[in-house]
């Protein structure tokens, strides 16, 4: 198979985070489709129990099981591979863990009915996280009987930016609780995967002040933790204006030649050109202001020193076709 350089060659676990409302789940879905190009198999994993993947791919609610939900992005040379989805919840992961390590599935289910599982994950919030990241680490490392990896990549639709550091930094979370013991051992294995070069954390943002600030804070937080790698910054829902750089500032200042605009509108065959020119220049001015603010935010993102990718705004919702469009955009920019 022809190899093609991407910015994340060798990465197997793509953790996708972002502030609420930035389209984190959508980007995770598009990234999974893009990574599944050229016959690769990808697992798209959701950990917050909101059934976002099911809504995104327009399928019925997904269980705690790996289901094939889509075909990866096709290219001229190759058909896309398969994208599988998994909705992981801490309780099921805990049952699976008990079974795997202690063959305790039956006792586990009985205890689940008593509410013990809820209790255990409640009194130890770190436990919840380590079970979920543990599931991702397990999927990354899983091999088939021919000893080759089952998944070429795992994409995790992770908790929002504000919680990502704590979510991934499982050892310190759990070491507060389990100083020794099996969970501690489990956490250490998980952290080895998360800190390896096979794992990166991508940040989804839009060009507004608060999401950009959270992105920068999140990257700084990961750096401070040490060992967990920040990945790309994916700027979602971009809508460039067709104005030259100099014009943008003028338009934002309200310095738009309405007479010129009216002239143009008239030659385009539109009536009442003067009134229309006034209304359209108000629109231009507002959008130019927004665009200038966005430029400023882009400059702030550039200071983070991580690769930046741009995804276009899709008019009229996303849908499956939109998702593939975003996937190709990611691929063209070598994000996948």
């Amino acid at each position, binding site marked *: 198979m022809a190899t093609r350089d991407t910015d994340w060659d060798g990465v197997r676990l793509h953790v996708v985070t972002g502030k609420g409302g930035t389209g984190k789940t959508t980007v995770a879905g598009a990234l999974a489709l893009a990574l599944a190009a050229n016959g690769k198999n990808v697992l798209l994993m959701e950990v917050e129990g909101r059934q976002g993947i099911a809504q995104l791919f327009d399928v019925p609610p997904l269980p705690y099981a790996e289901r094939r939900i889509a075909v990866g992005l096709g290219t001229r040379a190759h058909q896309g591979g398969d994208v599988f989805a998994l909705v992981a919840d801490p309780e099921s992961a805990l049952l699976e863990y008990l079974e795997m390590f202690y063959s305790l599935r039956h006792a586990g289910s009985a205890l689940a009915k008593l509410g013990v599982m809820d209790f*255990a994950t409640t009194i*130890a919030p770190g436990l919840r996280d380590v079970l979920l990241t543990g599931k991702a680490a397990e999927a990354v490392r899983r091999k088939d009987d021919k000893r080759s990896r089952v998944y070429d990549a795992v994409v995790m639709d992770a908790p929002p930016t504000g919680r990502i550091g704590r979510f991934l930094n499982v050892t310190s979370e759990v070491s507060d609780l389990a100083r020794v013991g099996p*969970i501690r051992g489990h956490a250490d294995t998980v952290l080895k995967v998360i800190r390896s070069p096979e794992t990166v954390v991508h940040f989804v943002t839009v060009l507004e002040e608060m999401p950009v600030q959270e992105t920068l804070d999140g990257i700084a937080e990961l750096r401070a933790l040490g060992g967990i790698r920040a990945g790309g910054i994916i700027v979602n829902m971009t809508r460039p204006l067709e104005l030259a750089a100099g014009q943008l500032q003028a338009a934002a200042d309200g310095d738009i030649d309405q007479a010129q605009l009216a002239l143009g509108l008239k*030659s385009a065959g539109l009536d009442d050109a003067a009134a229309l020119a006034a209304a359209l220049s108000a629109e231009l001015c507002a959008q130019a202001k927004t665009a200038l603010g966005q430029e400023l935010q882009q400059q702030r993102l550039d200071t983070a020193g991580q690769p930046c990718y741009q995804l276009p705004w899709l008019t009229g919702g996303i849908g499956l076709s939109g998702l593939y469009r975003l996937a190709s955009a990611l691929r063209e920019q070598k994000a996948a």
Partner: protein
Amino acid sequence: MAESRPPELDVDRLIDDRRTRIIVCCGSGGVGKTTLAAAIGLRAAERGRHVVVLTVDPARRLAQSMGLTSLDNTPRVVPGVRPAAHAGNGAESAGSLHAMMLDMKRTFDEIVEAHADPDRAAQILANPFYQSLSSSFAGTQEYMAMEKLGQLRRADEWDLIVVDTPPSRSALDFLDAPQRLSRFLDGKLLRLLTAPAKVGGRAYLRVLNAGFGVVTGMLTKILGTAVLKDVQTFVSALDTMFGGFRERADYTYQLLRAPGTSFLVVAAPEDDALREASYFVERLDHERMPLAGLIINRVQLLPAAHLSAARSQAAAETLQAAGPSEHAGSEEAARLLTIAALHLHADRMEQAAAQRRTAEQFTGAHPLVPVAEIPAQAEDVHDLDGLRRIGQAFGSA
């Protein structure tokens, strides 16, 4: 299809009505809920109310836009509130505005300090399990937000409290979390666990005989003995407060249903946000909580809305087909400027149409819920004037 418009949500009437004592802003994350709560608070203050805004969002910018360097767990006065010109609501002078940001750990600590003697309080506060519960339990923030709301209401220093709910996994969490936490804290399982540490645990002994060994064995396997020990110490120290937690949760729950409380559901004109809003509206109805209406934030409103996307696009194509003007200079500049303006307009008209379709899915399912729309702002809010501009949209309703 006949166009049926939903009833208009009159926010000014809501905030002018002195019987309105609590406004709860809820909705999914990223819809501008916190900023709206601040804008509503400011508008109410400038129309004569004495308002406190309780936010859970640590946004520095919001604090700065209210002239404060930062927000903390104590209500701070917001300078610069002035009477609204021509408020038309009979208010002669401005009221006042305070703002605060919830510190959930501090609030939890205060409850402990208020309910236990100093020695026992110190013991609880130092317990590692308490520290993890009070700073990271999923639900503590919601519980403490509601607790703070109850405190502010009891203090009776303000005649209107505007509260912004935590950016939960789901917008419904803040209704459930207080009960979940109180159920947890005085739950059977926790008592079961701590029964050996107590004398009067007889009622639980029967269950205990059957299952206790298995339960603790399992939890020890999962968590290790140290955690269980912390939990046991914590629970026996907290014993006297158990009843208190449930009572408090019940009190806030009743407060939310009481006359004088109104819920505003906030959404962006997008599928996900409006779907959450739908769930929320249904849930409030089910709980018989008073819903004032839905605010759709950041709606694309266009001055040239009478020019359709299709006509705008067609006109742009006409100009493009005409090709570069022979007269270089101003005529060519006019052509390019017009093409840019027409493309922009067509794109935004399509967005506006998509937003309207999304909103109609909501109003179709909930035709009786009053709706207000807030236009998208060109720039981020930086000062009180920015908040005022948002509030002005309530006036046109």
